[in-house]
């Protein structure tokens, strides 16, 4: 899986958090654009872990702002598997 397809899969997964139906791209900010709150973030990370079968170190979450950041992290964890 390449990084672009990770971005696409994430965008698909994120649709249900997309309350205002904005266009999702690698640049979309999870906090300010999608307004994902601290509880939803946990739901989201769990879904990503299950979908990609990876572990996401929770310490790294504070460094994530955009869908692209998230995709890079997922991509790294996939490669490290």
């Amino acid at each position, binding site marked *: 899986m390449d990084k672009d397809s990770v971005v696409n899969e994430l965008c698909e997964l994120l649709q249900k958090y997309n309350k205002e139906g904005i266009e999702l791209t690698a640049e979309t900010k999870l906090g*300010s654009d999608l307004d994902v*709150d*601290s*509880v939803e973030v946990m739901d989201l990370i769990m879904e990503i872990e299950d979908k990609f079968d990876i572990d996401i170190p929770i*310490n790294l979450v504070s460094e994530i702002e955009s869908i692209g950041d998230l995709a890079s992290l997922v991509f790294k964890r996939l490669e490290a598997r």
Partner: protein
Amino acid sequence: MQLTATTNADLAFRIGEFETLTDGLDYAAKGVTGCNFFSPRGKIADVLTYAEIRQRAVDLAVRLDASGLKRGSRFGLIAETNASFVVFFYACQYAGLIPVPLPLSINLGGHESHVTRLRGMIAAADLSAAMASVDMLPTLREAAEGSGVELIGSPDDFYGLTPVGGDPRPFDKTEACYLQYSSGSTTQPRGVLVTQRAITSNGRAIGQHGLRLRPGDRATSWLPLYHDMGLVGFCLAPMLSQVSIDYLATSTFALRPRTWLKTMSDHGGTISFSPTFGYELCVRRMANSNGGEFDLSRWRIAGIGGEMVRPDVLDAFVDTFANSGFDRTAFLPSYGLAEATLAVSFTEIGAGVRVDRVDRDAYERTGKAVPAPRTTPASSARSFVLCGRVMPGYESEIRNDEDQVLAERDIGRVCIKGPSLMDGYFRNAEATRATILADGWLDTGDMGYLLDDEIVITGRRKDMIICNGRNIWPQDLEWAVESLPAVRSGCAAAFSVNDDHDEERVVVVVECYVNDPEKQQELVKDIAAIIHRTAGVHCEVVLVPARSLVYTSSGKLSRAAAKTQYLDGSIRLLHAEPAGPEPHLEQPRLAVSAGA
């Protein structure tokens, strides 16, 4: 890997009968109980008996002493839930150093605000040394830059220090124990200096009276170790009574709350605490289950603390997990605060959650908790949870603003006295004077009343916001908003409003100097975004015309006045979006009693 035993077969069970933490650990180390750490997927990751913890702590203490750290200097520990934190905390006790647990952050994009927060604590505590795991070390170094911290490293860096020349002397019973940062804003954090006397007396009261510990008890916890409920309730107090603890990281619980219940079920946990929020999260995540896959029948104390107790949520938990053998009388409401080390009161074991239903109108207008007749409809009643009597050795009083003691069922400031009160905030005489009254009583900052000597909390006078179990200081939100170019300094007020379920919602009122409606909409978005980055919460943004609100004498928007006007609907709105209280919201009684 095998978990530590629940009971010491060959060592007498001594409940908190110690005068220092090292006395307690020296004794616990004679047995086979200890701490167990579980992975994010709920597997056993690390097991240490108290004997092993003591051995490592004593060894490390020699190295810390040899490194030249002065007695009584502060040692910051990024408090991840793992063996290193526990070993370092106790090593400081053996070395005569004051450990300072430091917070983690799991907010999306929250790195900057985490660093700022750490930086404030590092400066306020005047740290001499600091430790973080390899993962967190870059964040810690960034925060400590230019602060003058002499030693910063990973656990292995400190374990690798030379022991040559080290001759550590443990804290004695008259000395300090640790420094707890759990209140205060980012730039003015307030550290509670907890003494050996405070921690051991609170640990003893918790074990002997609050929980009535007995052989066979086993603690389970996901509470963060940088908060008093996690650190005291589920690290220090259990150790002082030789109780084994099963730990999950807070993030593990947040991701997969069922791991908490599974761990209790698999390993026979009998005691665990959580804010109401934690029980709610379990219910929320049990959609595709009949709730019967666990054995929760041994769970004898399901403590509730840290935020207002919400009975309806607990009812839902009971309904969801009835098939797992959860007993509703296991619920144990409690009251406490870091300024009293941790615990002040517990309800009687086995009594469950008891609610006082009062007349809403009297509560709002007269500040009295008048019992509502059974026939009173729900809309005219307000329910509060009884949090028990203070523990032996403690006293409680309800006072008005003139410091007069009020009668039963009169709502006022909850004040307490007892052996585990802090002497004061660390190097902050002003904040101390505002909290420790002239007669030695502690003003908790909470509002409430007494009912047959039981404490009933109705809300907070302090402005602190508690959202999803986390404390948020309004000042931090206001500063963040005021950092936006379009917002003037001192023109934002952040506060929370309670709905009928005692859940808090964040509201930010901002005076707006922008006229273009499109730009105003943009500003609303920017404000919501920066609040989100700062604290990870949703908020309602309310734009009001310039100079339309009340200012304090220091030229700052008055939070209390903004909240009152927001709640009674007299606030003037600038933008078109609907704002103001929804019909089910509590009336402004709390805001009024909060004063300015």
